[in-house]
């Protein structure tokens, strides 16, 4: 098989250079290409390299997607549990307030909402950490 038109070859070189393969893989392919030209065997190697890398990337993406699902579920669960515990404590405290003592009730609610704010800050930090983990994972 002769694929050796000059303009096509230049395009093939560009395709290799623009690919998502790592530089060592690109280098190796270009070396084979300079030796063998655009032979069927070369194209087979090029395709195999792409398939392997695509498989790796797909696996990484599926893994990262799972990380997102798992971590968000964990954070949600933690948040709900901690908030429920804060609410339970508040309800016990509210039960001791004289009926109609709006100021005492308001003080308890204020304190509760401050704690909820703190809890949400922790959650925001957790989400940030997951985001970083995923973004770093995407660059691999």
């Amino acid at each position, binding site marked *: 098989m002769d694929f050796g038109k000059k303009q096509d070859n230049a395009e093939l070189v560009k*395709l290799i250079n623009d690919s998502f393969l790592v530089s060592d893989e690109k280098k190796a392919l270009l070396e084979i290409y300079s030796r063998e030209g655009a032979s069927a065997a070369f194209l087979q190697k090029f*395709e195999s390299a792409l398939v392997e890398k695509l498989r790796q990337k797909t696996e990484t993406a599926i893994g990262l997607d799972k990380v997102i699902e798992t971590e968000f579920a964990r954070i949600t669960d933690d948040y709900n549990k901690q908030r429920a515990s804060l609410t339970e404590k508040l309800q016990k405290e509210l039960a001791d307030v004289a009926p109609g003592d709006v100021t005492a009730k308001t003080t308890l609610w204020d304190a509760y909402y401050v704690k909820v704010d703190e809890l949400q800050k922790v959650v925001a930090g957790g989400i940030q950490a997951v985001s970083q983990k995923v973004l770093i994972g*995407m660059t691999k």
Partner: protein
Amino acid sequence: MPGAWDKIKTAAKEVGEKVIGRGPEVKYRHEAQDYSDKNGVSIEIAQKTILARYFDAVERKAAVTRAIDYDSSEWRAVAAAVKETMGDKGIDGLKKTADDPRYPCRPVVLSPAEFKRSYSAQEGYYKSKYEKRAPDYAVLKDCAENAAMFANYSKDFRSFVSSFSGNAASLEALLARNPKMKAEFGRLFQLKGLAEKHEDRFKKDMNFEKTWNASKVELQKSVKEMLTGTGNYCVNVVKACQMMFQGNFGAGLMKGLGETAKFLGIETWGAIKVAYHGGKVLGSKVKNF
């Protein structure tokens, strides 16, 4: 009688007041003055009469919503009446009296059926305002109790003001002689404040949850976009190689892309397949040319 210049100065001052959000105070001032002029009564009597009307409006609204409405223009009018007759610190004074242990709150006891009604009214209030969402039980329970207290005290206070509407004393003087009512009036402001706190918090929680969900969606989108970019590149390679070499290049890659597309979603896979077959047809045309 005020001169023309005084009238202009007053009008300009009132425009300024409206601009800074004191429109209801200006309105109350005018309504009280008009009532006084038309009925030949003192401004103090007129002020109390208008205040009683404002309470009527609060009650009418409460009868519909059975909740303490965050954006209640009716309650804003009451607050304006207090500010206008007792000064800007009038509300603080009322709240302070409400905290005075000598004037404890008259408890409002709800039967289980009343509580249930009030609770579901609070739930309905929130759901109608916030995408069919409502706060958790603890908040709704508190809102239900507060709304019941608010309705009771509001009714009491309206009766109190009405019964003294013919009295020449100002509202401030009247409340000074009736500290229990003053405390109850103060409690209405406290209850409104607590209701606002709950609603502000609920809005904040909803925003927090939305940001949280959006972060998740955004992250998942980024992961998929990364892979879509890779997939698109592969399709381009297949098409370009088919064009260049007129062969059946890319069957293995397309199989690999099948797995990728499964993760990305059926729509993406459809687009990839169309692109592949388009490339094949184009390739065969070049070959047969």
